[in-house]
């Protein structure tokens, strides 16, 4: 193992330990902020698979977040177990991604962005106007599942549960990206025509990536429902996709773990800054502008540059 790789692994282990032990050191509100960062981090990482590796910029990723969230919200009150909490939302989101992906992958570039956006807005419209789904106020009173017979109602228990799932998702994505499948995706991102000429069924690979990303987004959505105990149609909004997009870009596109860092930066900016000043929007906007102009690789890019670790 070379120096930079060891250093990076050590940093990750230290960070994970810090996150795991955070509830012992801090009050409930900061811990809940951290939990929310982990959830959005999973969402952002799944989007990075699409954007950073497969080169597909999707503005409709919130559709799968929402499908996962609502599936959990509908099932958990009746079946408070892991099947309803994790498996069903992932499957439902995956199916949604299969259908939407099948149609969307026919187009590319801006058209792909707009078509995926259209689909998620359609979901929003349906959820907003459907009484069974709670209409504009959404569904409330969702219980957390029992995990291996134990309740995860307390903040500490939920923290452990969430951390385990986040680590599993991150490792899974890391493996996918490093696998032959991941390499093909990167090849498609770099030069789709060449991959096609060589004989790869490009569309099938893209669709697979779309479904995998969608399933993980569904898990993130379900975790969000379990975290808050309720869900509203805003989960489907194009602005939710937009925020995930920003998190990926801020963290560093194509870095995978940048998604969690970006989620952290965004949520902290959005929540903390607004507690101190009315001009939080101005600060947020200027931060983005300055970030783009002076830190093009996102947070991870800046870190790598600073510490001297090459990509």
């Amino acid at each position, binding site marked *: 193992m070379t120096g930079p790789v060891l250093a990076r692994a050590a940093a990750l282990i230290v960070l994970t330990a810090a996150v795991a032990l955070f509830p012992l050191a801090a009050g409930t509100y900061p811990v809940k902020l951290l939990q929310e960062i982990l959830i959005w981090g999973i969402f952002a990482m799944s989007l990075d698979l699409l954007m950073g590796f497969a080169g597909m910029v999707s503005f409709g990723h919130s559709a799968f977040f929402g499908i996962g969230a609502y599936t959990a919200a509908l099932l958990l009150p009746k079946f408070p177990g892991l099947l309803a909490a994790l498996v069903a939302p992932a499957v439902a989101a995956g199916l949604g991604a299969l259908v939407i992906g099948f*149609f969307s992958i026919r187009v590319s*570039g*801006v058209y792909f962005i*707009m*078509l995926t956006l259209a689909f998620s807005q*359609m979901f929003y419209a349906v959820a907003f106007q459907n009484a069974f789904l709670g209409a504009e106020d959404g569904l409330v009173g969702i219980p957390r599942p029992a995990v291996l017979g134990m309740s995860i109602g307390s903040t500490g228990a939920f923290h452990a549960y969430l951390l385990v799932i986040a680590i599993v998702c991150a490792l899974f994505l890391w493996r996918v990206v490093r696998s032959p499948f991941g390499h093909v995706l990167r090849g498609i991102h770099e030069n789709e025509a060449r991959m096609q000429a060589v004989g790869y069924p490009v569309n099938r690979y893209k669709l697979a990536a779309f479904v995998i990303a969608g399933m993980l987004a569904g898990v993130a959505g379900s975790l969000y429902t379990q975290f808050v105990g309720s869900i509203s149609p805003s989960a489907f909004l194009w602005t939710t996709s937009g925020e995930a997009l920003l998190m990926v870009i801020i963290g560093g596109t194509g870095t995978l773990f940048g998604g969690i860092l970006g989620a952290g930066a965004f949520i902290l900016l959005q929540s903390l800054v607004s507690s101190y000043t009315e001009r939080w929007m101005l600060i947020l906007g200027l931060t*983005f502008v300055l970030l783009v102009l002076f830190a093009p690789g996102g947070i991870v890019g800046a870190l790598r540059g600073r510490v001297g670790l090459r990509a």
Partner: protein
Amino acid sequence: MAGSDLFAQALNGLSYGVLLFLLSVGLTLIFGMLDVVNLAHGSYYMLGAYAGLALIAATGNFWLALAVAPLAVGVVGIVVERTCLRPLYRRGPLDQVLLTFGLIYVFEDLVKWIWGGRIRSIPTPELLASSVNVWGAVIPSYRLFVIAFGLVMAIGLWLVIEKTRLGAIIRAGVYDSEMTAGMGINIHRVFTLVFAFGAALAGLSGVIAGPIQSAYPPMGASILIPALIVVVVGGLGSLKGSLAGSLLIGQAETFGKAWLPGASMLIIYVVMAVVLLMRPQGLFGRALK
């Protein structure tokens, strides 16, 4: 439904479609010609509306505001293009997304800081404050003005782009910027001009839409999606497409609202999905690889 009812709704659809055209033509120019993802398009629309408000407050003259506000927004466009966008042409769409998203927040908060968050509105100019009866259909005279103005604008733009030297330079610059620069034309200045022009058009639509709609700091977001959809349906960078797309959507939305209650949230997305699935490059866009 009686013929005059049908005609009345078609007229409504035309006025809405023309308004959409004015809203989106600036975006298609920037998108198609500069290949820049300008999510802050709605912000220029908002700046135009507020500049219009300020000018009307100062002079009481709507027509003056209509003429001058777009110029002010164009200047803002020049500043943005030279300071923020120029470094990003080579960097690709993702960075442009983040930057223009940041600009949305910045502009919205600045406007709120200066003018406050209260809802405001540009009053209808006295000359056009009544409604008229056109072959049995009642329509506000202001909307008739919008239709006329929009169609004149469409023809004017087409003439500039297709028939003037400036238009030729722009078209050349879009097609092959290196070659055009190689022929001694200051390509940077052309790009700045096009961007500023696109922003000015958005600002103009902000003033024109003013008497019909409201002005409030987050208003940019409300037209961004419709504008993007029109551009995509029509085909990126195509003036003809922008007009065709907006007129199509105008009629679809209007009749959808009249005949399919409950579906009004969905219509515009369904139209776009259908068009893209049949013609992935939009109605008049260049065929993609």
